[in-house]
């Protein structure tokens, strides 16, 4: 059966459904995307019964519009992967992205994980209150978002902890100076309710040009972040390759 489906005729799922019709004579409530004449994709659930009537082989199809359920599913999934305070991707989204990029990058691409821990954020909360603290977090997120593109992924993974996960051509790795500039940009003075708020940041940046264990990369970036913090500077970056490249 070929309706106005989105996928090609030899799509494995379509061939499986055809096999079901040939062998079992029916299938029920299969998820199939149809194409509206406007080009819009319509998620549906299709049940099909194959019949032979007076020598004519027919498929009788009942199609249920599944758009609303799919939209709800998508919203739930988006909520599960979004930090509610900043709107950035959250820890779960970061873990998912890190695991994919650790092992499945285009050849010739390296991976940089910048672990960002804010300095002085607790003082902001203590002095101005948590609502102002949240606005500072949103400000940091907004500044980080300026770096987000297909090669750069930003997330908030803890209270005052952020990450910037980047792919790069292996012969053009990011430098400590570039990361220092990013750190200084996200720590620029913020004006919140007429108060000039200053925060700092320690960045631990682990680089790799190889397929790497995601936990090892994260652990190394975390250690480098603590080394940066130990310098005592308001804004500090420690950057190292983890595979000796």
């Amino acid at each position: 059966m070929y309706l106005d489906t989105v996928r090609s005729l030899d799509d494995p799922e379509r061939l499986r459904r055809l096999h079901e019709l040939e062998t079992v004579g029916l299938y029920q409530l299969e998820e199939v995307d149809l194409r509206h004449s406007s080009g819009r994709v319509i998620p549906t659930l299709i049940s099909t019964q194959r019949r032979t009537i007076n020598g004519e082989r027919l498929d009788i199809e009942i199609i249920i519009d599944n758009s609303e359920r799919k939209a709800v599913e998508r919203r739930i999934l988006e909520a599960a992967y979004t930090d509610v305070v900043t709107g950035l991707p959250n820890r779960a989204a970061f873990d998912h992205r890190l695991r994919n990029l650790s092992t499945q990058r285009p050849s010739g691409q390296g991976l940089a994980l910048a672990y960002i821990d804010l300095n002085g954020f607790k003082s902001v909360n203590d002095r101005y209150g948590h609502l102002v603290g949240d606005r500072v977090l949103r400000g940091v997120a907004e500044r980080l978002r300026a770096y987000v593109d297909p090669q750069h992924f930003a997330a908030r993974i803890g209270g005052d902890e952020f990450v910037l996960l980047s792919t790069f051509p292996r012969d053009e790795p990011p430098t400590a100076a570039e990361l220092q500039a990013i750190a200084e940009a996200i720590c620029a003075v913020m004006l919140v309710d007429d108060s000039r708020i200053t925060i700092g940041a320690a960045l631990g940046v682990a680089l790799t040009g190889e397929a790497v264990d995601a936990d090892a990369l994260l652990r190394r970036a975390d250690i480098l972040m603590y080394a940066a913090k130990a310098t005592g500077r308001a804004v500090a970056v420690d950057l190292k390759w983890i595979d000796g490249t």
Partner: protein
Amino acid sequence: MIPRQVVYEALVDVFELSPVAICISTAEYVSRYIMANPAYLRLIGRSW
């Protein structure tokens, strides 16, 4: 006893009036539509 013809006509009404999309097509690798009800045509934005 209600004649079968009456029952079949009622079933045609079920097909035509159903809010659920229904279609009948030839059982081929690339099939042809034989009948599609109004709900199906509305769903995919086409006319018969």
